[in-house]
C-alpha cells in the first residue's frame, strides 16, 4: 500500500482510537484487545519513515 494511504489510515486510527473522551466506571464494558491495539498503533506510527 502506498505511503499516503498508510498515513491516512494512521491519521484516522490515531484520532479515533487514541483520542476522544474516555468513559470510565461501571457503565462501561471493557473490550479485550483495545489496549493491545494502542500499543501496536505506536509501533505502526514509528514505522512511518517516509
Amino acid at each position, binding site marked *: *500500500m502506498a505511503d499516503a*494511504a*498508510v498515513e*491516512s*489510515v494512521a*491519521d*484516522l*486510527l*490515531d*484520532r*479515533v*482510537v*487514541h*483520542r*476522544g*473522551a*474516555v*468513559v*470510565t*466506571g*461501571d*457503565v*462501561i*464494558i471493557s*473490550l479485550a*484487545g*483495545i489496549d*493491545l*491495539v494502542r500499543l*501496536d*498503533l*505506536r509501533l*505502526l*506510527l*514509528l*514505522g*512511518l*519513515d*517516509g
Partner: protein
Amino acid sequence: MSTRDWLCAYAITRNRDGLDLGPAPRLVGYRDLGVVVSEVSPARFDRIDTLDQVDGALAELAREHDAVVRAVFRHEPVLPLRFGTVLDGEASVKRLLEVAYDQARDCLDEVEGHREWGVRVRHVEPAATTRPDTAGLTGTQYLVRRRERLKALQQAREDVVGAAGRLQDALRRHAADSIERARPHGVLVNTAYLVEAGREAAFHAEFEWFARELRAAGATVETSGPWPPYSFTDVELGVPADG
C-alpha cells in the same frame, strides 16, 4: 452478563429532535445532551487483528466509527468518544450523562463551531555520507567539495526548521488550540489545530504562504481534515460505581 443490551457509543452531542443519523445509530438524550449509540455485537470487535491495521478489521471499524461521528458533526457539535466505548444498556448511557453532564457540556461548548485540521511537515535529508563524485579530484579539492556539501546540508536543514517554526507560529495565531502529535523519524511538524469556522480561510492562506517556502527548501507539507475535534476532547468522563 447479558450482552444483548450493549450499546456502542460514538459521541456526545446536543439533544435535538430530528437529528438524522441514518438507519442504525440513535440518540439517547438527557436534558439538552445526547449520546449517539447503536446496538453492537461484541463479536465484531473480536475480529480486530492487531497485526493488520492498515486495511484490516480495525481500520474498517474505525472508519465506521468516524462515519457516524461525522454524520452528527455535519449538523451539531460533537464530543467524540474513544473508539470501543461500549456501554451496558440505555440506563447506563443516561447515568453517564447525569454524572458527567457539566463536564460534557463545557467540553461541547468549547469545540462548538470549530473543526480540526492536521498539518504535517516532513523533511528527509540526503545522507551526509553519500560520496560526491570524486573522479579527478585532488585530496584538497575533495575535502573542499565535502565541506561545501556538508555546509549546504546544514543550511537546508536550518532553512526548513526555521520555516517550520514560522509556519507553526502563524497557524497558532489563527487557531483556538493546537496539539503536537507523535513525530516519526523525518517528520518535523505533526500538529493538530482546532480552528473556528470563521478563521479557516485565514488559517489556510497562512498555511499556503509558508508551505511554498518549505517546499522550496525541499520539505513535504500537507494538511489533513477537516476532522471532528477528536484531538481536543481528551477528557475523562468518570462514572463512579452506584453507591
